[in-house]
């Protein structure tokens, strides 16, 4: 029905609807007494869903920009100031979306099934948690830690690099095997990193073992404190809410950068080599593509994104433990990629949004509704996350095997050449 409307009408309707939903959602969140209402979360989610409509429907560029500004720049921060739960969820979605985009390079573009991806996330997260908190004092003398919070910006590129190196080191011995074998080996290596984190508390306490590492919250020494502290004093918004908003802006920028990087890689010699390798290794090698090197680049690229997001995750959450990086975490990120569509950049973001909001909003809300009828706690849907993921994945495989937003490669075109050159010989 929507498809039949003329472009201009459709675009206008979309913009109007975004505005209306935004206003309603904001007013509902502002009303403290309606926070308990069962309608707030659905309305906020519908409001956010307009982002998806703006990208998947054919609407004018202006409408797309307006919707993005309304939702991402105005709506989410304003709603977040009123109720930080929603902002927390959005920040988590962004972190996982960026990571899933990294895994998408490995699994979607290059076709290498990696079941231990959370290991690289752990590398980044521990890097910041150890040095950004006071944990490093256990093995480096001089009481130098915690480091200045602003150094998180230095640790993002460091983690990018370290995770890429770890990815390459893990990849080097295993990338000669293919398919199922690769999946099993990566699963094992992923667990190795987690077990390492679990046990590196003696003889020298580096990771604090299974108890995890905490970064003590300290407004004075938090990233960008010189902006957030005065801003929160001036606006009367609590510091931690202000800081979360700052992280939101930061992580949104990182996600945009990751989208840009992966798109550009996809449309280059390297991306084409990845796809060729995925399609047919023998033929790809016969065309001059060095397999191990090309796979390593994919592996290290994916790992580096996870490393960078690990730093931000540790900074936002403030506490990490080995259990954050177990096999379930790896499958969760893989589920985002498969659910959204292997190799599809918008799909992977949608996948991350669905998995995280299902986890942190939808199931919680459903269980709240179910409490109305005094359902025994053992039927609480939040206890059945794994079952629900499994059911969704099975349904996806049957109904939409290529994912919610199937990948559409933007192939190279001769039209990219200037017209003069194109005219020569092309009818």
């Amino acid at each position, binding site marked *: 029905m929507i498809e039949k409307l003329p472009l201009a009408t459709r675009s206008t309707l979309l913009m109007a609807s975004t505005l209306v939903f935004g206003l309603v959602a904001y007013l509902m969140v502002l009303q403290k007494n309606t926070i308990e209402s069962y309608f707030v979360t659905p309305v906020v989610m519908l409001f956010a869903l307009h982002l998806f409509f703006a990208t998947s429907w054919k609407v004018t560029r202006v409408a797309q920009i307006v919707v993005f500004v309304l939702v991402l720049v105005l709506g989410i921060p304003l709603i977040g100031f009123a109720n930080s739960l929603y902002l927390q969820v959005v920040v988590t979605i962004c972190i996982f979306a960026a990571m899933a985009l990294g895994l998408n390079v490995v699994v979607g573009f290059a076709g290498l099934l990696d079941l231990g991806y959370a290991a690289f996330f752990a590398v980044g997260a521990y890097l910041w948690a150890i040095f950004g908190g006071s944990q490093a004092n256990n093995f480096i003398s001089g009481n130098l830690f915690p480091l200045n919070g602003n150094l998180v910006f230095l640790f993002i590129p460091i983690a990018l690099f370290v995770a890429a190196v770890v990815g390459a080191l893990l990849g080097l011995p295993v990338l000669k095997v293919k398919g199922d074998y690769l999946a099993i080996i990566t699963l094992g290596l992923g667990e190795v990193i987690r077990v390492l984190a679990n046990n590196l508390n003696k003889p020298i306490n580096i990771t604090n073992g299974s108890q995890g590492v905490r970064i003590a919250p300290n407004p004075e020494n938090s990233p960008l404190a010189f902006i957030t502290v005065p801003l929160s004093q001036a606006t009367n918004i609590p510091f931690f809410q202000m800081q979360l908003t700052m992280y939101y802006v930061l992580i949104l920028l990182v996600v945009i950068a990751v989208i840009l990087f992966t798109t550009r890689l996809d449309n280059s010699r390297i991306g084409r080599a990845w796809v060729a390798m995925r399609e047919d290794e023998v033929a790809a090698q016969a065309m001059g593509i060095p397999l191990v090197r090309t796979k390593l680049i994919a592996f290290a690229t994916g790992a580096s994104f996870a490393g960078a997001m690990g730093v931000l995750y540790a900074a936002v959450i403030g506490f990490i433990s080995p259990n954050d990086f177990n096999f379930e975490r790896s499958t969760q990120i893989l589920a985002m990629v498969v659910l959204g569509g292997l190799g599809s950049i918008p799909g992977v973001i949608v996948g991350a949004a669905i998995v995280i909001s299902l986890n942190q909003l939808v199931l919680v809300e459903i269980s709240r509704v179910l409490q109305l009828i005094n359902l025994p706690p053992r039927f609480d849907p939040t206890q059945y996350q794994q079952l629900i993921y499994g059911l969704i994945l099975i349904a996806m495989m049957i109904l939409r095997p290529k994912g919610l937003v199937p990948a559409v490669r933007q192939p190279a075109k001769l039209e990219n050449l200037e017209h003069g050159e194109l005219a020569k*010989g092309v009818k």
Partner: protein
Amino acid sequence: MMLLNVNKARKVFGGLTAVNDVTFQVPEKSIISVIGPNGAGKTTFFNMITGIYKPTSGEIVFDGQNLIGLRPDEVTEKGIARTFQNIRLFGAMTTLENVLVGRHTRATTSFLDAILHNKNYKQDERAGLLRAKELLEFVGLLEKRDELAANLPYGEQRRLEIARALATNPKLILLDEPTAGMNPQETESTKHLIRRLRDEQGITVVLIEHDMRVVMTISDNVTVLDYGTKIAEGLPHEVRNNPQVIEAYLGRGAAAGEFGKTEGGEAA
């Protein structure tokens, strides 16, 4: 001058000697055919040259460089390209992109260039597109450039494989049964295309082929393998009349019989 020199190449799989001390020479700008009954070791021989298999013993020298121990991608970089007996295109990519993949070793875009979209990236992409356009014109697939390779008809897939191989800028191209499964018209146009490879692009061609009409009319020289051993070598008409070759194809009884005459009559 010899472009490719294979000296006593041997490949043993367990108890089976797939290629048995084959010596084989390819002069520059020639078209050489390798023929033999099914299972004679022709494809294994190709796979040794291109680095998929490492020879058990023997030497392979291409353009003055030793090829033994090189990986297939390194062999490609030295200037040997190939096509496959059972077509192996990248089905999910377009015709144009298949050719661009072939340009991988000659392209210079690095990881950083791709992310930054710098001058090198732009020049390289442009050069790649221009070269791909040229090659697609050469094989007559320019109009089909934006179609997925998997959706092309069979004959066009074969031609695309040749265009993709040409994109690696080879000095020598190995064609594994380029006319297999083609109708007479397609075979004729492929034959024409192979001649043009040498005459217009200056590329040396070695082909494995079963269609004797193709072999006899376009080859400068024919090598015959049987059970991994080279049993004959020479000009097409010499090989055609070689009793050992006839025996290998048709069995001892037919060796002196009709085969050579009828085939010869048609081919001439």
